[in-house]
């Protein structure tokens, strides 16, 4: 069976500085993959490449077997890729509800709508009329995830959900993830918090300097090997 997402032997660079080198990532339909790694490992670059913000120099990104080469970011939403970007990136002059509605711009049908998102994040429902700029970090992150869900994605990209948030808040946000995957949504999450990532993911892939240094099922990952891979210590 074709995986939903195939990132196939991709090179991405910022100018002359390579960010991803020959990276291959596959995510099966319905699966949750957590990509972890130290800062500068290429995690966010991977998500941006899948979302179409960055273009690979070499290699291909395929959704359901179809190449996304030449498909701009805004068209990828219509194909079923939605992202909650690093730093939330809410529209500050729009209200919370308007932010969510903008998420539905592509008009993809599916289970997610205002009511479903409000049910998932009751706190967001309470803040619906407020300007998005006036929310706490955790609330903003919930809106950003809800906004991505409004596109009814097949593949949800979550970038650094925990960034700058208290552990309690992070746990609350991740508690919503099973209800999202229960709808059949495939999730690719980039996370610095390794324990959080292992708790929610089916599989985990660790990047270091743009390459995969370790991958495997989240349930059976060897913590010693993982921490060695994370910090780039060669274990052999």
């Amino acid at each position, binding site marked *: 069976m074709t995986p939903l997402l195939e990132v196939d032997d991709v090179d991405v660079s910022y100018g002359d500085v390579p960010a991803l080198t020959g990276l291959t990532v596959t995510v099966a339909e319905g699966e949750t993959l957590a990509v972890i790694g130290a800062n500068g490992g290429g995690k966010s670059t991977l998500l941006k490449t899948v979302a179409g913000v960055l273009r690979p120099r070499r290699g291909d990104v395929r959704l359901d077997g179809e190449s996304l080469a030449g498909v701009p970011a805004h068209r990828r939403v219509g194909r079923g890729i939605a992202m909650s*970007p690093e730093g939330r*990136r809410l529209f500050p002059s729009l209200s919370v509800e308007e932010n969510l*509605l903008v998420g539905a711009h592509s008009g993809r049908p599916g289970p997610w709508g205002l009511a479903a998102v409000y049910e998932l994040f009751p706190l967001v429902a309470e803040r619906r009329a407020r300007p998005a700029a006036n929310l706490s970090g955790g609330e903003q992150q919930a809106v950003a995830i809800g906004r991505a869900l409004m*596109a009814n994605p097949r593949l949800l990209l979550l970038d650094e959900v925990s960034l700058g948030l208290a552990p309690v808040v992070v746990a609350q946000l991740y508690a919503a993830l099973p209800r999202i995957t229960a709808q059949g949504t495939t999730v690719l999450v980039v996370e610095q918090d390794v324990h959080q990532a292992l708790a929610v993911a089916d599989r985990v892939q660790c990047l270091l300097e743009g390459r995969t240094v370790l991958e495997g099922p989240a349930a059976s990952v060897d913590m010693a090997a993982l921490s060695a891979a994370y910090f780039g210590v060669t274990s052999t």
Partner: protein
Amino acid sequence: MSWVNAVVQGILLGGLYALVAAGLSLVFGVMRIVNLAHGVLAVLAAFGAYVLGDALGLHPFLALLVVVPVMAAVGYGLQRGLLNRALGGGELAPLLVTFGLAIVLQNALLEAFSADSRRLDVGALGTASIRLGDGLTVGVFPLLAAVVGVLVIAAIGQFLARTATGRAMRATSDDRDAAALMGIDGRHLYGVATAIALGTVAIAGVFLGARSTFDPAAGGVTLIFAFEAVVIGGLGSLWGTLLGGVVLGVAQALGAAVDPAYGVLAGHLVFLVVLATRPRGLLPSAVTA
């Protein structure tokens, strides 16, 4: 009573200035560029209505039915073909391109229509007036022009606040890259914004052209008055722009009541005073529109 008269005339004129300014503001709000050809495009629309009247005998109001959609289409094409490319060329490129366009259009109009002043003929409507009291009469046409100006501005405001496209425009104005991640095509949306700007400036151009005379060089003052209305009112606020237009119109009318040569100068001076004392305008707004 002539002072009251001047104030009333100024208020009515301000509605049209604000209408020109609304398009300038919309484009600036959405893509942070100032279209220096905005004034000349208003004059182009007036010449369009003039040609239609001359060739087909169309009343300016009927000509609007042709000129507005044509100008909107021109706006969309201009944005997609020229300005979107200029946006990728740094801060100076959009200014250089739109200024170049203004000079090109103005001189092409000059060659096509000569430097003669013209006026659009609205028939009996142009001379009809309503007596409001002792010595105070209001022309029906200037009143109608002001009402149309306010209605169009209100329509732009409702469009931005209530429609999905308006919402997408505000989102793009906040953060274009994040908007792209929501499936919004910035290039298309910019085209729509410029189409609306040119459609509305076409309405303003035709009404201005029927209210008084115009010639190919009138684009400069049209741009300047719109800009003054925006700055007096406060950047980014549609209703502020309306207030700015009215303040400018009244200043010009009062100045002209003292001496016809002082009309435009009085408007400029009020603008400079506002710039010096209240640089954020009379009705500053945090929301871009």
